[in-house]
Structures are given as structure tokens and as C-alpha cells.
């Protein structure tokens, strides 16, 4: 095994991803993702956030450079094992519309061959964990509210208790109030579970609230890596532009606590 530092869950070394036409979506990106912390990939649309995320679970393979997951080159991982080692939750949720909530959450345990009783128990446990009433187990996704669907999406991503969780704007499609609620809950959940989380967002408030580190992306390149405090203090032009756009100004920063809209001074 390569001697990668064990406190880095995912290491990205000089990775590029070019479309067949030659256009670079990710350009020579290097980034260490610390274990058991939340790293936010912040950037505008088209900055390469989602592509970077998909490179991590091998939905895409880099055209140059190398990724390491828990010290092992990503290309040496079996893609299926790699993906089951990482939860995946996306903005459009992508719940299986023909499956009930219970089967949506329990699908991965089922294909992993868990005994039915254990899988059922796990579903109950996860539903409680993400704040879903047990009575919703037999509902279909079309019978749920947007917030409930997102909760199912998160529960499904956690089904196999993966040490890493990849989230692509998981709260993007929600109304502001529900979004704030879910963000706060997710923050507390993450404190409890201690997963390595990579979260893609274009929302600075979300980044400040949930991120222990914020990687700012622009045109497929890393424009800066900050803690939330640093992000609020830095004079880097792009970070300043973000603060101004979100009205987060230069006021004193506060580490995120609870469901308040972090950074909204």
C-alpha cells in the first residue's frame, strides 16, 4: 500500500478532466480532503464542483493526474466497492419512484445480501436518524414533501454506513425555511457520525455553516482553501466577491451552531 497520510480520506493530485473535445472541466486540481471533517466545494455553476465530486467516486475517471482514496489509488478500487464505500446524495435526489421509502433506503443493504431482518432494522434506524416518521416507510417518493425526500436521500446514502459521504447540493431544491432546518440537522448529524463529507454548493451561507474547510473553485481550478473564519477574513478577490454577493460583509465570523443561517451577519 502506498504510504499516504491516513488522516487524508481523499487526496487529489494534479487531476484534470477534459471533455473529448478538449474543454477542461477540472484543471490540474490538487486537494487533500481531511478525514472525519466536512469539506465544501464552493463555486459558481460550471466551476467544476460536480465534476470533481464525480471523479471521487469514479462516475468519471480523470484524464490526467491521480486520486487516492484512503491511501489507495482510486483506479485500483473496484468502482462498485468504491461507490459503496461512499454515500452519494444529489440535488435532484434521484429516489427510485417505483420503490417505497423503505425499499429506497434498504436497496443497497439488499443487494449487499444483508438478511432481511437486519436490513429492516437498519432502515428503521436510519429513518429515525434523519428525522423521518416510521409511518412514512410504506410511502412512495411522489407522496412525500421536498424536505422528506431529501431526508430519504440522505438516509439512503448512509445505508451501508460508509465512512465517506459525497453530497451534491443536497439542500438546493428546498424552500429557504426547510433548507435551513435540514442544514442545521445535518450539521448536528455530522458532528455525531463523524463522517468524511464532501459537499458541493454554490451557497456561501451553507458553506460557512457546514464546512470545516471551504475549497473555492473557479474554472476548474482551486482558487483557495480556507476555514470558515479564514474565508471571512481573507482579502482574496474571489472570496471577497462571494462575501459581497451574499452580504456576509466583513463582520465578525462565528463558527456554525445550530440551524441559524451561518454567516448572515
Amino acid at each position, binding site marked *: 500500500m502506498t504510504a499516504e497520510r491516513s488522516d487524508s480520506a481523499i487526496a487529489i493530485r494534479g487531476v484534470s478532466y477534459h471533455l473529448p473535445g478538449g474543454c477542461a472541466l477540472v484543471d490540474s486540481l490538487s486537494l487533500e480532503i481531511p478525514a472525519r471533517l466536512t469539506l465544501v466545494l464552493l463555486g459558481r455553476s460550471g466551476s467544476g464542483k460536480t465534476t470533481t465530486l464525480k471523479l471521487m467516486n469514479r462516475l468519471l475517471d480523470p484524464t490526467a493526474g491521480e486520486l487516492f482514496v484512503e491511501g489507495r489509488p482510486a483506479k485500483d478500487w473496484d468502482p462498485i466497492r468504491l461507490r459503496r464505500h461512499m454515500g452519494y446524495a*444529489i440535488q435532484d435526489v434521484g429516489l*427510485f419512484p417505483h420503490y417505497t421509502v423503505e425499499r429506497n433506503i434498504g436497496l*443497497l443493504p439488499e443487494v449487499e445480501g444483508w438478511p432481511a431482518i437486519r436490513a429492516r432494522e437498519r432502515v428503521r434506524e436510519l429513518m429515525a436518524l434523519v428525522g423521518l416518521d416510521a409511518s412514512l416507510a410504506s410511502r412512495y417518493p411522489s407522496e412525500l414533501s421536498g424536505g422528506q425526500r431529501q431526508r430519504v436521500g440522505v438516509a439512503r446514502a448512509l445505508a451501508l454506513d460508509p465512512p465517506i459521504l459525497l453530497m451534491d447540493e443536497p439542500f438546493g431544491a428546498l424552500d429557504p425555511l426547510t433548507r435551513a432546518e435540514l442544514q442545521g440537522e445535518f450539521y448536528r448529524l455530522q458532528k455525531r457520525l463523524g463522517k468524511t463529507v464532501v459537499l458541493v454548493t454554490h451557497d456561501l451561507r451553507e458553506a460557512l455553516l457546514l464546512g470545516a474547510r471551504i475549497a473555492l473553485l473557479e474554472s476548474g481550478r482551486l482558487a483557495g482553501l480556507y476555514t470558515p473564519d479564514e474565508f471571512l477574513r481573507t482579502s482574496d478577490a474571489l472570496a471577497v466577491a462571494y462575501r459581497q454577493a451574499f452580504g456576509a460583509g466583513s463582520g465578525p465570523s462565528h463558527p456554525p451552531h445550530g440551524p441559524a443561517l451561518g454567516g448572515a451577519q
Partner: protein
Amino acid sequence: MNLLDYLIAHPHEVLALSIEHISLAGFSVGIAFLVGLPLGVAIARRPALARAVLGVVNSIHVVPSLALFGFLFAVPWIGDRAPRMAVLALSLYTLLPILRNVCAGILGVDPAVVEAGRGLGLTEGQLLRRVELPLALGVIIAGIRVAVVLAIGITTIAAAIGAGGLGELIFRGLAMVNDSLIFAGALPAAILALLADSSLGWLEGRLRKRV
């Protein structure tokens, strides 16, 4: 002269020919489905292949059905027996709606759902069996429905090469200028087509409602 005369006088013959008719059409759609399902899945993954395959299958429909039945006389083994020729020709005809709908059904599945499934670590086979095919089922059934109705209609022409079925009564009636005989073939064929259409339509509606 009453149109129903022949039907009333020879119920057993009409019944036997109806059963023959159903088996010819059923066999043909069955074969078309067995070929069309895997082929449809394959072309849904490769757009370039889809254009080529659908083009070829589509062009079969350019050949008039009566002529297609005739051409097959020359094919070894197939040409030996009229029902074999009929089933092959009908399978070729009904392949198009099945193939097209399998392909369209799979391509019509919400990409977010497929991406989520793949990202969560489902294998391509699991994704197909548990997500894509179940979600495409309504559209696939709609294709089968078109294929069945088409097959029941064209099977009447298969009687021209001696394959049997309700077309026999129609052709005999045409030769004898006997309306009652034509009617005895046409009415059951129409009823079969309507029954197949409405029952598959009901199934399709039920499957689509869930999604």
C-alpha cells in the same frame, strides 16, 4: 342473407381458427419480444447503433406483408411450413414497436434516478433490472400492445400462404363472394384485437400510475 349465418352454423370451425390465429400472433409477438428486449436495451446505450438498427427494422415495414410472406418460401426450413413463414414474417413486423418502445422507455427514465443508482454503487445489471426496466415497463407494455394489435391484423393475411387462422374464412369468402363467410372471419379477428388492446391498455395504465 344474414351476416351471422356462417358463424352460427359453424361455431367449432370459427373457434378452432381463432385459436390458431391467437397462437400465430402470440408466438410471433413472443419471439419479437425475446429479440426486441435485449436488442432495445443494447441500442439504448449506443445512440449510433440505435439509428442503424431502427433504420433496418423500420425498412422491413416498407415490404408489403403479402410479399414478405411470399419471399420466405425460398428460405430453407422456414419455407417448408406455412406457419413457420407466417411466424417469422409477423415477428419481423412486430419487432419495430417493441424495439422502439424498449429503447424509448429506457432513455425516458429520469437521468437523476439512474445517476443516483450508479453513484450509490449499483452494478449496471442491478441498475437495469431494478431501476431502468421497471421504470420503462409502462412504455414497453405500450409497445407490446401495438405489436399484438398489429400481429392480429396481419395474421389474417398469413392465410394467403396457407398458414391458417381466421384469414382463411375471409379469403374463402372473398373467393366465393360470400359476405357471411368474410364476416365470420373478420368479426372474431376484430374482437380479438379489441380484447388484446383493452387488456394491455389496462395493464399499461396500472403500471404507469405507480410511477
